[in-house]
């Protein structure tokens, strides 16, 4: 069995163990793609015939052409919305990353705001934003901008930080300060990381736009989906999901190609796999690190309410949230409904995440051991990873039905592809020397997996998990809001329809807090692991 492991990493050309190793990857991928389409058509026409769950691809195409004006009009609308969100969100993120780079004192606070934004349950933020922006396109554009903000901020800051120290020293040796260093060195050095960030921002912007439209809009794919879901118009939901996938993935690919054209020397960078930032030592530093972001977030909260002058009926301050949870007459009732629902959401989300994780790790191991399978399927996995799965939630709702399993299935699908891609990439980076040592004792596949591939993948798994905490909770709440009637998503949609803004704000605040804490717990675990396993790789 070690022959297969050997073929993975080293490729003496002669060792074509399997005939499939010689087939070009494109041909393999195309063959797999056609096979999947055929199976889909077959299942839809037999097992799922007349069940609303699955439309055969042929009917989906027919439906698209029948209603193409409607589809293309709404697609254009959502794409335009996403483009505006992409522009504003990225501009803000890059500008703030620049500020954080030039004025390091502000770094932690800006980072905290960025993370908090990333952890917001967008689906429930939409109705609150609509109070400010009115019924038009403002809410989807804002959500789209918020959806790209964090990842672009992280990528831009990473780019500014990777500027070569010697070049920075040259600028300093001429007596110039941080601003000059930023303009002349850091900005230029950040281009590859920035493009990697913008690449994942493209599907994220589309996701933000569609999620914004889910809760109400005059046009766009989001509202079209919600109507189709109500009417059980199966083909329409599939058409929309496929169009969203193509546009979002297209944006991802175009920016990727742009990056390879602009800086062909730069290695591919995966923002989803960037290690967590290191903490400064010392109790006082840690206390400041904990308190400063909390204070900043609260200041932002009050500033938000004050700037937009929202009526007190809609606007809730941190104190209002506290009162609703602990001191109001109905506090106990609020607590039991919010925390009970939160428990359900966290349970179904964790279950889904773990299922996706196990699936991804097992698949990555299979890919490492059977190279031709990897060459056939990995390009598909890489393409699917860039899809904003949340946008395709309605398809999953149709297929799985409306129940607790829906949330679990969506979170599992969401976590599967990024984890698989990061995990495989990490396993593939297992040092050649370690593999040689294992081979020199004729170690089998199991020993390779246990002693080399799995441990090497752990840091990448944790980096993926950290990002997955907020995104999984977002996926879960979208599913609950749209379909399942369970969990905190359902509590929020009920509060929204009853104009119970107290419960809506409480839910948003609690969910955001849970996501932030989850993010930090995984980050702490990741740092400890990195210190043990690969010192010097944390940032």
């Amino acid at each position, binding site marked *: 069995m070690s022959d297969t492991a050997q073929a993975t990493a080293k490729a003496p*050309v002669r060792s074509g163990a399997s005939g499939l190793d010689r087939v070009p990857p494109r041909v393999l991928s195309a063959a797999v793609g056609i096979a999947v389409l055929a199976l889909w058509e077959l299942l839809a026409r037999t097992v799922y015939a007349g069940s609303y769950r699955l439309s055969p691809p042929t009917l989906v195409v027919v439906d698209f052409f029948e209603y193409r004006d409607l589809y293309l009009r709404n697609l254009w609308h959502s794409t335009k919305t996403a483009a505006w969100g992409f522009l504003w969100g990225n501009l803000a993120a890059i500008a703030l990353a620049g500020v954080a780079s030039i004025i390091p004192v502000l770094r932690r606070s800006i980072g905290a705001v960025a993370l908090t934004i990333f952890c917001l349950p967008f689906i429930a933020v939409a109705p609150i934003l609509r109070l400010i922006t009115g019924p038009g396109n403002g809410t989807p554009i804002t959500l789209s901008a918020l959806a790209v903000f964090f990842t672009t901020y992280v990528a831009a800051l990473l780019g500014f930080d990777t500027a070569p120290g010697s070049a920075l020293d040259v600028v300093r040796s001429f007596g110039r300060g941080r601003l000059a260093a930023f303009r002349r060195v850091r900005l230029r050095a950040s281009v590859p990381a920035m493009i990697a960030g913008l690449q994942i921002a493209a599907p994220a912007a589309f996701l933000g736009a569609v999620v914004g439209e889910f809760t109400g809009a005059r046009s766009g794919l989001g509202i079209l989906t919600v109507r189709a879901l109500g009417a059980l118009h199966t083909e329409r939901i599939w058409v929309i999901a496929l169009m969203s996938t193509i546009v979002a993935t297209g944006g991802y690919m175009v920016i990727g190609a742009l990056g390879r054209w602009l800086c062909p020397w730069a290695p591919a960078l995966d923002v989803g796999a960037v290690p967590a930032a290191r903490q400064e030592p010392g109790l006082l530093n840690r206390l400041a690190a904990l308190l400063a972001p909390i204070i900043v977030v609260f200041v932002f909260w009050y500033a938000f309410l004050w700037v937009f002058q929202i009526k007190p009926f809609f606007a809730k301050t941190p104190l209002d949230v506290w009162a609703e949870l602990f001191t109001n007459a109905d506090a106990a009732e609020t607590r039991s409904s919010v925390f009970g629902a939160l428990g359900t959401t966290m349970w179904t989300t964790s279950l889904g995440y773990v299922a996706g994780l196990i699936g991804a790790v097992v698949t990555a191991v299979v890919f490492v051991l059977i190279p031709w399978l990897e060459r056939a399927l990995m390009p598909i996995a890489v393409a699917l990873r860039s899809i904003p799965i949340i946008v395709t939630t309605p398809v999953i709702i149709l297929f799985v039905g409306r129940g607790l399993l829906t949330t679990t299935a969506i979170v599992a699908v969401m976590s599967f592809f990024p984890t698989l891609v990061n995990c495989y990439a990490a396993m593939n980076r297992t040092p050649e*020397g370690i593999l040689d040592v294992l081979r*020199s*004792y004729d170690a089998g596949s199991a020993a390779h997996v246990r*002693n*080399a591939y799995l441990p090497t993948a752990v840091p990448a798994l944790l980096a993926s998990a950290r990002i997955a905490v907020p995104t999984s909770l977002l996926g879960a709440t979208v599913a609950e809001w749209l379909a399942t009637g369970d969990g905190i998503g359902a509590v929020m949609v009920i509060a929204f329809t009853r104009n119970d803004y107290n419960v809506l704000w409480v839910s948003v605040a609690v969910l955001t807090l849970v996501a932030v804490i989850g993010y930090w717990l995984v980050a702490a675990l990741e740092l400890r692991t990195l210190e*043990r396993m690969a*010192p010097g790789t944390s940032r």
Partner: protein
Amino acid sequence: MARRGAPVDVVGVGRTFALGGGEVEALRGLDMHVPAGGFTALIGPSGCGKSTALRLVAGLDAPDEGTIDMDGASPDQMRRGQRIGVAFQDPSLLPWRTVSTNIRLALELVGRRHDTKAVSDLIELVGLQGFEKARPAQLSGGMRQRVAIARSLVTEPDLLLLDEPFGALDALTRQQLNDELQRIWTARGTTTILVTHSIPEAVYVADEVLVMSPRPGRVVAHHGIDFERPRTRELLLTDRFHAEVEAVSASLHRSEGQVVQLDTDPS
């Protein structure tokens, strides 16, 4: 001390790699013989195929032509029989394991996981007592290399293959480890092949130094080194040591001149 281990016979070995559309001939007509329990050093210009030769002997790669025989077994059979120990320039330790569990890895792989005495003996032999629980990141380069050597020896292999194990270390540590290596080899008597860039290192530790030509590599000179053992650092200062180093050095320079000859006359 009774010599043990397998003799190594390499006859007419050639190996060509495909590289970006073209081909690189790493080895052509490589012959070498290492007697059972012998210590042979392989030296040659950069890129002459020394490491390729060692990988072929280790069974990590297969030759395109020629044969490698060890007491009737092929390198692949030796590897599958788990009778080979290897150590490379990069110590290739598992960063998540401690010193003793890194050494134990080799025992686990050959199905002798419970032989704790072998591990503690080796830790003593390479002088790492007190560091059993340390992780690779906490060790110096020289200490990591000791762990790698201990790991390669713990299974009591019939053949020890060392690919520039001390190449990345400073001169002082390197000399220290050469002394250790000699001591270990004297104590264990395993057939050993050492690939190195350093002529004094080769002359100091080996019974025989083989000089290779530039790519495509083959052995162009044999130097038997018959200094009595144990060799000590005083030897480094003697005229006969310098004479031997000079001789190997001259062979190496002659071999580098041969690249022209080989290119114009492919016989």
